[in-house]
């Protein structure tokens, strides 16, 4: 007596292939999920105490990055401006804007504003802004076109793979030092310029673990 009909053979074959495909697909989906903005928080603008527009301040008014992020050239931390920096201008202009009330309140009371952090590295990652800037990595390379962001968001995935893409091939990203803060700069021939700058700036493709993890 035949328990299995002849068609069972086909089902069995299909299930072997299908099973492998499902596992593979699941793996692929997980891999994609890990890189998706849902996990990396890429392109997610968080609600901030004051809806600060980089687009307005950078593109519109022409403020240099370093006017606010003062320690980007000297420290691991680029620096988030104290309220007093905001008030340098906003003492004079938009003094009654409702949107700026939290800034004025903070300035009056001395209670600091709590901003939502967008670019988060885990505690076991050590990152230093100053050396990247000194070696000719532009702000826009990691932070995207901040000058076009009405609300600031994290432009890049900030994953280790992403870090390594540059640490392995710095020539693809490096730019002249005087163009670091230029949001719009683009090389005519990045390959040629990159190779030259890597040499000139003595850029080592630092991929040792202890460069970032210690």
């Amino acid at each position: 007596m035949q328990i299995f009909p002849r068609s069972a053979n086909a089902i069995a074959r299909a299930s072997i292939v299908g099973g492998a495909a499902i596992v593979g697909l699941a793996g692929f989906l997980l891999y994609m999920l890990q890189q998706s903005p849902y996990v990396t928080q890429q392109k997610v603008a968080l609600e901030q105490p004051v809806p600060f527009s980089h687009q307005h301040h950078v593109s519109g008014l022409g403020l240099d990055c370093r006017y606010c992020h003062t320690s980007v050239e000297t420290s691991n931390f680029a620096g988030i401006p104290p309220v007093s920096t905001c008030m340098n201008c906003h003492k004079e202009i938009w003094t009654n804007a409702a949107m700026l009330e939290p800034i004025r309140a903070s300035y009056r009371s001395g209670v600091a504003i709590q901003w939502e952090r967008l670019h988060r590295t885990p505690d076991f990652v050590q990152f230093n802004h100053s050396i990247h800037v000194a070696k000719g990595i532009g702000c826009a390379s990691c932070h995207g076109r901040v000058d076009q962001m009405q609300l600031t968001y994290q432009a890049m995935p900030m994953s280790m793979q992403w870090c390594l893409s540059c640490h392995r091939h710095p020539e693809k990203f490096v730019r002249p030092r005087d163009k670091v803060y230029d949001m719009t700069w683009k090389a005519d021939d990045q390959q040629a310029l990159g190779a030259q700058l890597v040499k000139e700036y003595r850029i080592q493709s630092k991929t040792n673990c202890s460069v970032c993890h210690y």
Partner: protein
Amino acid sequence: MAENNKNLDLDTFRNRFDQKVERTHWMSLHELADEESFFASVSEEFPQQAVPLQDGVDRRDFVKLMSSSLALAGLAACTVPPEKIVPYVRQPEDIVPGRPQFFATAMTLGGVATGLLVESHMGRPTKIEGNPDHPGSMGATDVFAQASILGLYDPDRAQTVRHLGNITTWTNFLGALGAELKPLKDAGGEGVAILTEPVTSPTLGSQMKAILAAMPKAQWHQWEPHGRDNVLEGSRLAFGGSFASTWYAFDKADVVVSLDSDFLASGPGSVRYARDFMSKRRIRRGTTAANRFYAVETMPTPTGTSADHRLPLKPSDIESFAFALAGAFGVGPGAKLDAAGDAFLKAMVKDLEAARGRSIVIVGNDQPASVHALAHAINAALGNVGTTVFNSDAPDAVPAIGRESLRQLVADMAAGKVKLLLMVGVNPVFDAPADSGFTAALDKVPFRASLSMYYDETGERCHWHVPQTHYLESWGDARAFDGTAAIVQPLIAPLYNGRDPIELFAILADDANLPYDIVRNYWKSQRPAIVFETAWNKWLRDGVIDGTAYVPKPMTVALGAIAPSMRSGDYEISFRPDPAVWDGRFANNGWLQEMPKPITKLTWDNAALMSPATATKLGLVGDRGLPGEGNERNLHLWSRRAPMVEIKVDNRSLKAAAWVVPGHPDGAITLHTGYGRTRGGSVATPKETAKGGGFNAYTLRTFDGLGYAVATVAMTSGDYQLACTQLHHVMPDEREIVRSGTLEDFVKNPALSAAHEGPHSGEMSLYPKWESETGYAWGLAVDTTVCTGCNGCVIACHAENNIAIVGKPQVLVGRELHWMRIDTYYKGGVSSPAMTVNQPLMCQHCENAPCEPVCPVEATSHSTEGINEMTYNRCVGTRYCANNCPYKVRRFNYFQFSDWDTESLKLMRNPDVTVRSRGVMEKCSMCVQRINAARIDAEREGRRIRDGEIRTACQAACPTQAIVFGDVADPNSLVSKLKAEPHSYRVLEEVNTNPRTSYLGAVRNKNKEIAG
């Protein structure tokens, strides 16, 4: 090495391995007793094997925990936890977020200051370094300074004012004090008593004088359990009635004699003295001469074990020895010694005679006044005064003999004369002599208040307890060993509502100023002629006030007739401050508690320390637990408990665990004080036991026996588990691990290699050599000649690298996390080892690292600059690496040892180093965070890193500069030069790991006239 390579063939190797080698350096009595079993038992990575969970988690709980963590595991990874950025409202001008700042301040112990530079991250002090401009530091620190950062953030510190144990306010205290003080003040201060530590702070001293001027009948008492009573009395004896302060220039002394002084590792000026002393014994290629050091002492100390000749004597014999020494120079009555002592003395005297004006005789604090007086006379007779030994007036505002002072106070209190008692920074209920009756007398005082860091034994018995500020929270000033004053400036506002002594005294003196102004005003009054603001800023910046060092004063020795006064007995007890918790004040400091103490390597406890022969005599060896002389085997190294002895002094008795120490004199027992606390924080007195670890030696100490006592000792029932790390992480190699020899040996055989040592395989490897991408190749060199084993590096490493402590039960199973340990090896007999070698061992950063290929996840890897890297976020905890490490320097987080919950401890951590979690391996990183910081600075400036620019935490803390870090690719760097020395060796070189860390063999400058 390279030239030997061609001679290597199979036969050579075979011969070498067939050869039966005996190592002359031993680590433990077990090893001497039965070498074979010893090596068998320590050759496992974790000799004690796996131990079950000890926290009482049973199977059911385990399953419950596992299932809930599985359920949560899926959720936890999905989203990144939100984080806030909180910038300043108005940013201080000189703060750059992310860059540390350094401020000069000073820490005092026993009234003497060590100048410090404190690293501060955004207003949080995180790491203590020595102040290179301060004479008491020269850039280095001792263990207490290093560990004081933990003391600052200690969550167990007193946090509120208490009245009768209930929480109240400072205002209430002021009201109560004012009401009580008013009538007494009107009566000229009759009935007011103040008890402090010895005061050398100029500002506090002037405040006290003002208080006593306003209240002439008030009494000021000073007490410290390990004070300088005998030093002061000795100087009074020697100089005809005047108190003197004495300091030394060890960099000018060719012959040094120590009579029970631990001047290299504890006490005033020890950090500076260690540096000066060791500057005369840096053995390098071609060195044929060095200073010579004779030590006569009871308990082996880092100082005594660094000596060229060490004579172990029990306390009463040290006094006789001092008299005999004085007799030899005709400045004392002399004394009869036994043959060994006499031979030692004769050789020593000859050396001293030959080094007139270039020698030092130094005496330990606990020696009787007569010995101090004799040393003054001997130094004067040798012409040392003014060249290597300096005297001046005592620095104390009002010098006082602590025991007289305390005796007087107790008498007054018992007679009901004291109406109001203020205790400042003292804990006499715990540490007053047992025969003082302090506690009973204290209860008779109608108003008693204590200002101290912890709600301790004394605080508990006072009506009022006020939390005291930590030195990193307060303004003040303090004097170094040579008198140089430094301003103590705060790094942070008081965390726990603490108050300074200056603030309290200001209230008594009706001074409305704040401590900052009081200190400033004092110094303004001292320097009326200068532009004060400029000078003040310079003092704060430099950490020293120029022109404040004592001026040496000629003092004539006028020594009357003195005679040996110490009673000798079959068992003499020597009381010493503990190397970790001192007099008990650091008992709540976990870093110090878990620090393996020099020589004994005990953690978390003290013990009755004695020689193996004494232990044998007391019947404590063999089956009773201790290894002894002869063949008493005790090979269950990990499970044996220590036997107990009962020590009786007069009618007082103490039961304590016994422990043998090689080099301890027979017939003597050393008891370290500071243990057996009953109140003082969760580390000092854990909740479970409500009693601190160890045994309270103060219960045997009397006014007349502060330093030593004659006792009867007997074995008693019971046993005690001591956590000793001497046999943890032992390298089970039957060949020599360390190299040592006499200076004569060094001249003949500069490599100090042992006879059996064949050629080493050198650079032989199947793998290509590491090429440094950047041109840097980092390495360490450690000079074991100058290492005293003081542990300064171990605690500095703790602070720099956020290393957790694990607690005594975990230490017992070998799970301590110290990234570096100091292995102590002995050579020679048990009763008086001829040589004690300290070999600080951290990750050796092997170029052929055995740990790297066995990691399944590549969590440990090699950087192109030669650092063996440990990447915590990759580690899955297989422990293969630790298992494969021949040096046993890798440490595993078996549990969540880092405290992630206590708020104050979060502030303490070094933000540049990851705080590790459960289940990851960790080890020395060669302070890669410092390397990276220096590299970034150098690259930004477009230059190479300079030699000496990077100093590892251990190197920076080392008082003797034994550890040198640098670029081994640069032949001109200091570290390269040290590696090129003939006596440079690498540990276990024969296993061809090619470590980046090397050592210089230990050399002692032996006198041929003394055997052994």
